[in-house]
């Protein structure tokens, strides 16, 4: 079956979209102000009209591409395109100032590819075995796991647990709009037929991640929007093969750190990057060189942030629970394609699991090739003025949202979500708990209510089953610890 799936990937259409996905991802990551989640949210409408395998290739390509793309602007203009690229800027920009920008970019690229492959291996090893365990889970266990994910994401993704949980509450409330699953009752529809199926996922993703950013940019002056960045020259000093090999151990260790962090909900690429950077510095024979243009200081964070992609797919495939916003958007895309991530995929639709494995591995190879050939071109994109880019993004937000159901009501909902996202960002609220609560809200409700039906309405069912009770106890302990930390810091 794996060979059959592999041959499907070698069709011209799939390869073309894989290249397009990686290229768009690199561009999205490289241009400051455009995040990976924004890039993938804007690509999502396109994927709805493509065959499943093409759509997976496009989105996974964009995911890998965006994680690397962030390092281009980090190295060339000292402005990371992604949060995960911030650690790369520390040494990358120093090297660029010494006229070795090409060497720094090549190190970042090959470290991204190596880390991505480590993440892929961890996905292969972890997902299959974890799925064997999660297949035995019933609705109480699923409910408990979703509660734990939400608590961890709410607590870790922002500085304040209260703000995180408040955002999760809004996401959960938004998920309840529409026809309810067990009795078919309508909730919060105000008699509007457009709300009968609830809010469209795309309206929320595009509104929160793309449109809210546009609203924030409205606050900037015309001069700022029209400013051309001064970019470091690429230089002619290229990365030597032995320099790459010398970083192999560093990249593998960082890749493992990144992939393991990716599995945990809510932590994400930036923590993985900084943690692996610190670990690389600790293990290094020349720790003083870190921060002054060390290749190890570029290899470690880049390997870690691309390895996060593979790790983050483990809970998606085995539980159907996203660990971060990008995987939440990916779940939305997979569901739109008729794929329902979760352990049953490993029994009923193994070919789809292989599609994701192969898609991820091939996207890394394409990233390596495209990056090697395209570094000079992608470097120029850093200079694109926001005053030209943003109007185009606004129109794409509208067409993209309209495209999924050919319904302009979804565009109005997108504007509404964008405004909510804008308000939340202005108040320093994290958006990831809201999106993840929205994505898992319906599954969470069905797990909770199925469990209560099984127990004739008794909530004790969650404490009579060992796994769900342990998970719920961990969630409570985690919440208490985070509240204590927040109170100690007055947040």
């Amino acid at each position, binding site marked *: 079956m794996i060979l059959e799936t592999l041959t499907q990937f070698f069709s011209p259409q799939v390869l073309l979209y894989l290249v397009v996905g990686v290229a768009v991802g690199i561009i999205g990551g490289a241009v400051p102000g455009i995040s990976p989640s924004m890039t993938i949210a804007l690509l999502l*409408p*396109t994927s709805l*009209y493509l065959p499943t395998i093409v759509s997976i290739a496009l989105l996974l390509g964009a995911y890998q591409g965006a994680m690397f793309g962030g390092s281009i602007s980090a190295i060339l203009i000292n402005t990371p395109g992604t949060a995960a690229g911030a650690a790369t800027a520390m040494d990358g920009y120093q090297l660029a100032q010494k006229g070795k920008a090409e060497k720094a970019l090549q190190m970042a690229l090959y470290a991204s590819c190596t880390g991505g492959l480590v993440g892929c291996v961890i996905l292969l090893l972890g997902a299959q075995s974890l799925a064997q365990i999660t297949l035995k889970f019933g609705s109480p266990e699923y409910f408990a796991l979703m509660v734990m994910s939400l608590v961890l994401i709410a607590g870790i993704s922002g500085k*304040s647990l*209260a*703000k995180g*949980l*408040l955002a*999760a*509450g*809004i996401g*959960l*409330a938004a998920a*309840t709009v529409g026809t*309810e699953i*067990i*009795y078919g*009752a*309508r*909730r*919060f529809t105000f008699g509007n037929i457009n709300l009968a199926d609830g809010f469209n996922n795309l309206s929320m993703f595009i509104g929160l991640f793309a449109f809210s950013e546009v*609203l924030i*940019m*409205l*606050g900037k*002056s*015309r*001069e700022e*929007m*029209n400013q051309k960045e001064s970019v470091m020259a690429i230089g002619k000093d290229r990365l030597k093969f032995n320099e790459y090999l010398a970083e192999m151990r560093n990249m593998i260790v960082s890749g493992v750190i990144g992939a393991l962090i990716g599995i945990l909900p809510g932590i994400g690429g930036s923590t993985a990057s900084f943690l692996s950077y610190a670990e690389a510095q600790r293990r290094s024979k020349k720790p003083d060189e870190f921060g002054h243009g060390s290749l190890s200081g570029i290899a470690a964070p880049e390997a870690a942030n691309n390895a996060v992609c593979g790790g983050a797919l483990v809970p998606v495939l085995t539980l159907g629970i996203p660990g971060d916003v990008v995987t939440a958007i990916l779940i939305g895309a997979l569901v739109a394609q008729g794929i329902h991530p979760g352990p049953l995929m490993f029994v009923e639709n193994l070919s789809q699991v292989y599609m994701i494995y192969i898609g991820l591995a091939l996207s890394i190879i394409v990233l390596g090739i495209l990056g090697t050939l395209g570094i000079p071109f992608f470097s120029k994109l850093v200079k694109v*003025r926001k*005053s*030209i880019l*943003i*109007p185009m993004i*606004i*129109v794409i937000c*509208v*067409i993209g949202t*309209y*495209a999924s159901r*050919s319904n*302009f009501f979804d*565009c*109005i909902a997108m*504007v509404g979500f964008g405004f909510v996202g804008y308000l939340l960002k202005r*108040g*320093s*609220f994290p958006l990831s708990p809201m999106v993840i609560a929205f994505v898992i*809200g319906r599954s*969470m*409700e069905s797990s*909770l209510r199925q469990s209560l*039906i099984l127990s004739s*309405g008794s*909530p004790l069912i969650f404490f009579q089953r060992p796994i769900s009770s342990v998970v719920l106890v961990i969630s409570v302990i985690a919440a208490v610890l985070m509240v204590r930390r*927040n*109170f100690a810091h*007055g*947040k």
Partner: protein
Amino acid sequence: MKEKKNNQVDFLYGAGTVILSLVLWFWMIPTQIKTRKAYFNDVAMIPRFAVIVMAIMGLLLMIISCKKVGSVKQLLDFSAFKANWKGMLKLVLFIAALVLYIKLIPIAGFVICTIPFTFGLLWCFGSKPLWKNGIIAVVFAAIAYLLFMYAFRVNLPNSPLGF
């Protein structure tokens, strides 16, 4: 000063959330959800749960910000708070223009609406010169139309002129 302002913002967000939760609990849930069962496992259970979480967290934000500033009187002293009316007006006008654009597309067609809208946005964000903005707006609207209409087969509304 900045910390006090941040706490005041948190307090306002918390108060806003509590008010929203009250509206949801006392008006929207009773009028917008017809509960089928009177016991714990009914259709309004998750909406109620979400509202409770929002209300508690809103209250918590208010309490934490009060605790950090020291007194309620100081917290409610907004004299140093300068409202950015110009920025707010810009935001409202932009959203109104966007909603108008969305409403006009089905009537006037995608291309006809997108060209002036993109041109206006380019000008608004400070892109120069105007003739270049005009070319960008026309080329972008045409490419977006052709790409979505023919490559992705999205049925974008046409104008009475047929495109």
